[in-house]
């Protein structure tokens, strides 16, 4: 069947065959392009519950699709494809395949929370966006975002020592995101620090880089935090039907 409006159809739904004969009729090539059906044939009923089980997603089932979140959205103003209202609907009905088309922009939420204040039903769309990004990550659909990599290193140090040590956070973040260590802005910052900071503070900075002191009596806190983090992560993974340690 010749089609002139192919631009209206998603490329993956257009099929041509190099050599195909049906009932004695040759239907090969461009002039016999087939369009795949695009009907939704089932709902994945687990999806809403999975998102609702992750922090921030608890109120997703309240949504009635008014679009206040999308209208209020900072990111939507820049990118029309960023549509929290639409994603919430897909999740509620379990249209996973459709949601995954947008997996590379969902994490772009800037958490300005304008949607949170616009929403008439307290869905807390910002939380839902966070939960959804988390879900995509846990399910292995998306790699860790740069901010997740930063957060992880930051958290790791806090849990270990009760403090962060900036040089280590920065270097590990660069390594994790594949960025070079030598960056112009960073060099300028260090040069200026060395030039202007009192010697006493520079010495303390240097010492902490080398020795990485812990907060006094931190062991007990570390133990408690670790236990809590483990508990939450376990619950999240269980809610998503995932075993083991997975992506992390």
């Amino acid at each position, binding site marked *: 069947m010749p089609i002139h409006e192919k631009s209206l159809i998603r490329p993956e739904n257009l099929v041509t065959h190099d050599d195909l004969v049906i009932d004695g009729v040759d239907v090969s090539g461009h002039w016999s392009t087939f369009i795949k059906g*695009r*009907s*939704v044939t089932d*709902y994945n*009923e687990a999806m*809403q519950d999975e998102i609702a089980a992750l922090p921030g997603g608890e109120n997703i089932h*309240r949504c009635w*699709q008014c679009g206040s979140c999308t209208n209020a959205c900072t990111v939507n103003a820049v990118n029309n494809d960023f549509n929290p209202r*639409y994603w919430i609907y897909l999740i509620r009905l379990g249209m996973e395949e*459709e949601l995954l088309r947008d997996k590379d922009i969902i994490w772009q939420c800037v958490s300005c929370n304008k949607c949170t204040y616009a929403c008439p039903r307290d869905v807390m769309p910002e939380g839902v966006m966070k939960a959804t990004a988390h879900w995509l990550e846990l399910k292995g659909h998306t790699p860790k975002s740069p901010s997740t990599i930063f957060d992880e290193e930051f958290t790791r140090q806090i849990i270990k020592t009760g403090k962060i040590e900036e040089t280590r956070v920065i270097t590990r973040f660069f390594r994790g995101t594949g960025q070079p260590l030598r960056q112009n802005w960073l060099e300028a910052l260090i040069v200026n620090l060395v030039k202007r900071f009192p010697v006493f503070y520079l010495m303390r900075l240097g010492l902490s880089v080398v020795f990485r002191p812990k907060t006094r009596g931190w062991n007990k806190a570390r133990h408690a935090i670790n236990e809590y983090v483990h508990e939450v992560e376990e619950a999240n993974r269980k809610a998503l039907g995932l075993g083991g340690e997975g992506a992390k």
Partner: protein
Amino acid sequence: MTKPVLIVGGGPAGLSAAHALATAGQDCVLVEKEAVLGGAPILSGYAKLVPSHEWAKDAIGGMVDRVKNNPRVKVMTGAEVQSFDGDAGNFTATMKDGKKVEAGATILATGFTHFDSVNKPEWGFGTYPDVVTTVQVEQMLSSGKGVRCPSDGRVPDRVAILLCVGSRDRQIGREWCSKICCTVSANIAMEIRESLPNTNVYIYYMDIRTFGLYEGDYYWASQEEYKVKYIKARIAEVTSDGKRLLVKGEDTLVKRPISIPFDMVVHAIGMDPNVDNMTLSSVFGVDLNKYGYIDKRSTYAHLAETNRAGVFVAGAATGPETIDDSIAQGQAAAMAALNALHAAHKTAAE
């Protein structure tokens, strides 16, 4: 002394009118064509009513008892009015069995008829046993048997409720909103989720009209507490793949066709004008409106009046109506009838 008031129809509106008149010291005659009083909630076996959550047999049953036990109300069941003559203050109704009833005024509380889903064959009612109506689900609940697929008695995994079946549809000459089906459907959906927590309920809608305070207790509660899912789609057809029902339509929010399997499909049927309205119109000499309901005059000056002096109307006889409002209209019609009787009595005395 004035003549009694003839009340036609023993549903919520008629029962309420009878009680109101008797309480005010006015004799009345309540005529009901069925063998029992109570109207649709009793005859069709409704379960828990909106908004009280009381069982219909208790709530409406109480109204029936109150009227039956009132010495000022004469109840005639299994009776129909054959002809109706005379003027305000001085009517004579002749029953089908030849009995005559003298009346000073009359109140038509003749109610409605449930839409017959066979008139929308594309939605599978009458073809597939697991396509049922809201009335059937009410009966499943009120009988205590629970919601089960009629074909094999299994507990449905997934139930679809289709709204506006027999309402808001020019194709079948029903342009009105039946007013109660959204709320009733939300109520049924919650009942299903409560009794069968593993059953998912989807409501396919064009608009949701859980008006007034029903918004919170039904629409919001069904979503927030019972996780009922609402999908904006008018279904094109209900078919079967041999095992389950297949619901086809367009999900208008994602602009995609849907073809989803369900175990049970429930038609939220609307309220038709009473099938007897043409007869009632000719017997009582009252006009019908363009939709086929008994025509009311303007409410501001003529509450509950029809075009014929001394003949009043209340409840779903005038259009789709809730039980609560039918009861209120029954009382309003009683008041209007009392006023008319006294006016006629006074004129006669002068």
